[in-house]
């Protein structure tokens, strides 16, 4: 506890802010997972690979077509989302009536294949991607790069918009109804399979978007997804599988918790989230915001 006193408050503010920035990535990725699980009941293990593809897509757009970051921000999620739709049509669709485990195994296998292909093609150290917003602002207690500030803002906007669409609009109401009782909703003349397909595409697109946002900060490497996906799954489990608001709040909170661990006991920073997960599962098996079905 003496270490606590050893850290000046300025440093603490800095670390809180950094935690929030990392939390933004966790929130965006776990949001995509939550949407997919909530609507499709599929545990999408390819999410990490799709995040990585988003980053690579941005890199390729720049390298081969000369399209800069801001174009990539719009194009890459669409391309990756379309790829997701293709996966859904070809493979996932056949598994809806089976146990969750089949979807998990399929998506896990796919992610291994995708990562293997990228590693074979681009090596494991990755590719450089320039920062589109260099420089930053000295806040007194820390130096805040403009780009990181942008990441937090963008991620908050996306999370809020998604939550709003699903919880507060007619389209969202259809979606939620279709999850509860697809047959009945179809009887009202709504094309449920198409809606599910588009939902999966949207979730995957979110992963792609997170990938583009990550490209200028982290190395664009085939391993970037698998490094992150386990943590993101822990976030989703803690927040409650399928809970949209839960995953967003948990994402940001755990980012902060992890950031603080990096100050007080850095060696534990890669494990702290899993310790929390274990405790939450013991106390609330459905997660903090989840409901038992």
């Amino acid at each position, binding site marked *: 506890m003496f270490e606590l006193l050893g850290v000046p408050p300025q*440093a603490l503010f*800095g*670390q809180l802010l*950094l*935690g929030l*920035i*990392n939390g933004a990535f966790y929130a965006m990725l776990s949001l995509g997972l939550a949407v997919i699980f909530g609507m499709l009941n599929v545990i999408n293990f390819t999410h990490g690979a799709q995040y990585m593809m988003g980053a690579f897509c941005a890199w390729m757009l720049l390298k081969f077509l000369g399209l800069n970051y801001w174009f990539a921000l719009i194009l890459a999620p669409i391309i990756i989302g379309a790829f997701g739709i293709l996966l859904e049509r070809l493979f996932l669709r056949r598994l809806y009536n089976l146990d969750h485990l089949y979807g998990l195994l399929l998506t896990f296998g796919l992610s291994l294949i995708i990562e293997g292909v990228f*590693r074979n093609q681009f*090596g*494991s*150290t*990755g*590719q*450089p991607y*320039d*920062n589109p917003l*260099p*420089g*930053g602002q000295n806040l007194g207690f*820390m*130096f805040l*790069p403009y*780009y*990181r500030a942008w990441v937090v803002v963008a991620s908050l906007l996306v999370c809020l918009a998604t939550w709003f669409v699903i919880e507060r609009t007619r389209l969202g109401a259809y979606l939620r109804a279709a999850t509860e009782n697809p047959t009945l909703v179809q009887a009202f003349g709504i094309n449920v399979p198409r809606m599910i397909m588009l939902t999966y595409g949207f979730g995957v697109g979110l992963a792609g978007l997170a990938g583009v946002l990550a490209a*200028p*900060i*982290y*190395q664009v*490497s085939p*391993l*970037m997804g698998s*490094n*992150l996906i386990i943590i993101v799954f822990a976030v989703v489990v803690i927040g409650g599988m399928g809970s949209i608001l839960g995953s967003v709040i948990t994402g940001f909170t755990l980012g902060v918790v992890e*950031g603080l661990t*990096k*100050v007080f006991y*850095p*060696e534990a*920073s*890669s494990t702290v989230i899993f310790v929390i997960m274990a405790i939450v599962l013991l106390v609330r098996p459905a997660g903090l915001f989840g409901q038992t079905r």
Partner: protein
Amino acid sequence: MKKTLALATGLAAALGLGQAAAQVSDDVVKIGVLNDQSGLYADITGQGSVLAARMAAEDFGGTVLGKKIEIVFGDHQNKPDVGSNIARQWLDVDKVDAIADVPTSSVALAIQEITKTKNRVFLISGAASSDLTGKACSPTGFHWTYDTYMLANGTGGALVKAGGDSWYFLTADYAFGHALERDTGAAVTAAKGKVLGQVRHPLNTSDFSSFLLQAQASKAKIIGLANAGGDTINSIKQAAEFGIVAGGQRLAGLLVFVTDVHSLGLKTAQGLVVTESFYWDLNDETRAWSKNFMAKHGGKAPTMVHAGVYSAVKHYLTAIKEAGTDEAGKVAEKMRQMPVNDFMTKNGQIRQDGRVMRDAYLLQVKKPEESKGPWDYYKVLSTIPAKDAFRPIEQSECPLVKKS
């Protein structure tokens, strides 16, 4: 009498022949390249090391003492337990005679122990910890390419001389990071510099901002990166983002490979001072070998680890030929007696503790406008002679040295 003598001679000759043939165990010389095939060190070692070992076997003619040379490889995933299992399987069941490369010091230390007890040759190229020729040395273990002492004194020494007299370390939290931090700390203190502190991050971290902020707050003139591969790349990239270099602090990438520079791009990496024992563009010989390597490796330049694997395998095979056997003890003895000479090594000597004494190079990453083409990344600042690059034998904690 004459007849008996002739018979005896003939018999002896036949026996001798028979013995020579039987001296290669299992009728094959099998070398296992064990490294990271899929993780953050895969570009530094990985398939490139396997290719280098194959090239050495090919250049040797594919056979030694009339027996086939075979190269196999495995992926230890940077985990000591996984690596140990593969090594045991290789040595006990698959008739592997020597293990080569093995990056990730924690894994290499485990393999050193296994090869020592099972009496097989261990040709270390990828791992860095100087403990491999220190307290963990082995009579059949050779540390071929570089070590943390060399990195510490090369890069660390040069930066202290240039006025960087206060240091803060960003250390990968396992055997290699600890050894590199310790050796560099010693080099800094010896040169009258000060170590202000350190922060240890888990292996394979993607976000370094928090650690960098702590390093920034220390106000140290130099931030020493005691990590490698993807960890170093992300640290350097994010240090630029947080304006650390612009703020007057300097980064010391203690272990940077040419592939890391390639990944970072010259714009981000320019000015870094690094120590390596090999660079492809040093002279005609290194260029010739590297050209051949690049043609077979998708145009990617060899790292010093790749070159070291070639050099070690070649020397090992030569020693088998000279010793007339592949028995590890005898081969190891022969390896120590013969000087190492190849495209990357000039008159290298192998010490009792297993350290290969070779020159090292202090290099600086070029500015983008100085680079003439792909992979033209370094300019040579100076050559560090072997006796200055590596730990003096008197300071070695290796029990093999003390006994003699």
